């Protein structure tokens, strides 16, 4: 239970030095470097944006716009930040704009019920019925969080960001970022408290998730 796995470093992620070199070359107009920056961030960015807006086409549009805005102001990019933090910051603002626009069109903001993803059938068969049910319950609870809370949870667990980096990405003070994360946990705990009847279910879920 106590073995927490917060290290989300993936082999495909760029090192800071490699990232800086690519940014310098992209600034100089090197298209290959710009392409590598896109390729190394696009999947993570899309996963985050899709989880926030829950719409495939909108998520792709937002990702493309985020890359273009990032490249468009590459000269003002400060090397003290990670490129990914900057990119996620731009994308998060675009998500908020998109959600506001959608709200003004539909008059409602309950994104949890808008789209449900249907995972690949073979993938679903590979896991137990019980584990899948629990995972779906958890994602359902995540979808019911407010947008900043959901973003904070995704950035913390999926991207492995610190509260300081989450605050920078969301454009809020660190205390507010912590508050989003802690309130999100409290809501998740309340939503899921009745879901689990015994401890063995949680264990099977954690094993399935890993």
């Amino acid at each position, binding site marked *: *239970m*106590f073995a*927490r*796995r*917060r290290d*989300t470093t993936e082999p495909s992620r760029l090192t800071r030095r490699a990232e800086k070199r690519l940014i310098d070359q992209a600034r100089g*107009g090197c*298209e290959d470097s*710009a*392409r590598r920056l*896109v*390729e190394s961030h*696009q*999947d993570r960015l*899309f*996963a985050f944006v*899709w*989880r926030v807006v829950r719409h*495939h086409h909108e998520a*792709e549009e937002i*990702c*493309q716009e985020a*890359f*273009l805005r990032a*490249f*468009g102001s590459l000269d003002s990019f400060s090397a003290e930040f990670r490129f990914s933090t900057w990119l996620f910051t731009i994308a998060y603002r675009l998500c908020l704009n998109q959600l506001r626009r959608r709200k003004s069109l539909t008059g409602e903001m309950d994104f949890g019920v808008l789209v449900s*993803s249907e*995972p690949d059938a073979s*993938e679903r068969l590979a896991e137990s019925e019980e584990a899948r049910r*629990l*995972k779906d319950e*958890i*994602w359902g*609870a*995540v979808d019911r969080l407010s947008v900043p809370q959901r973003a904070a*949870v*995704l950035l913390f*667990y*999926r991207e492995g960001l610190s*509260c300081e980096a989450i605050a920078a990405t969301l454009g809020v003070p660190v205390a507010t970022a*912590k508050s989003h*994360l*802690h309130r999100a*946990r409290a809501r*998740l*705990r309340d939503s*899921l*408290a009745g879901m*689990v009847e015994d*401890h063995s279910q*949680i*264990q099977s*879920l*954690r094993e399935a*998730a*890993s």
Partner: protein
Amino acid sequence: MITCSDTRRLFDRYLDDQLSPSLQAELHAHVVHCSDCQNELAILEACGDVVRLDRREPVLSVSFTDRVMAARRAQVVAKAPRSRRLVYAVGMPMAAAASVVLAFLLSIQGVTDQPLQSGDTLVAVVDTAATAPPPETAVAAITVAAPVQFQQELTKLTAKKLAP
């Protein structure tokens, strides 16, 4: 030994990795013997595990990277200085027009008595056709670097060449 409410207050700091080793030890000691706190912590940890590891999002379109790069190229052109944009907007069509005129001139070179020799320049062809080559024929040899001028010169020279 800390109480259940004390323990639960520590959960966030524990999950944020901001709990001191001594408080972590206290928390572990309590959770091992308290099934309620154990379940609550396990639910929170399971949420974190699922969000971190369950990647059942849809995937990006295959063409996404190419689309972004194409949009970036368009962005670079749009942001280029006005003079460079003028080259793209005017220079390229003019160069294309100059190529057409050049091709036309080469196609009518058979009218002259002497066939075009390997290594001859366009100026040479025109000179052989014109009885008194104007001094500005040299301009025609310059090239495509000044497409407008080039086109004008070629037109002038062609007219002379075709005159009886």
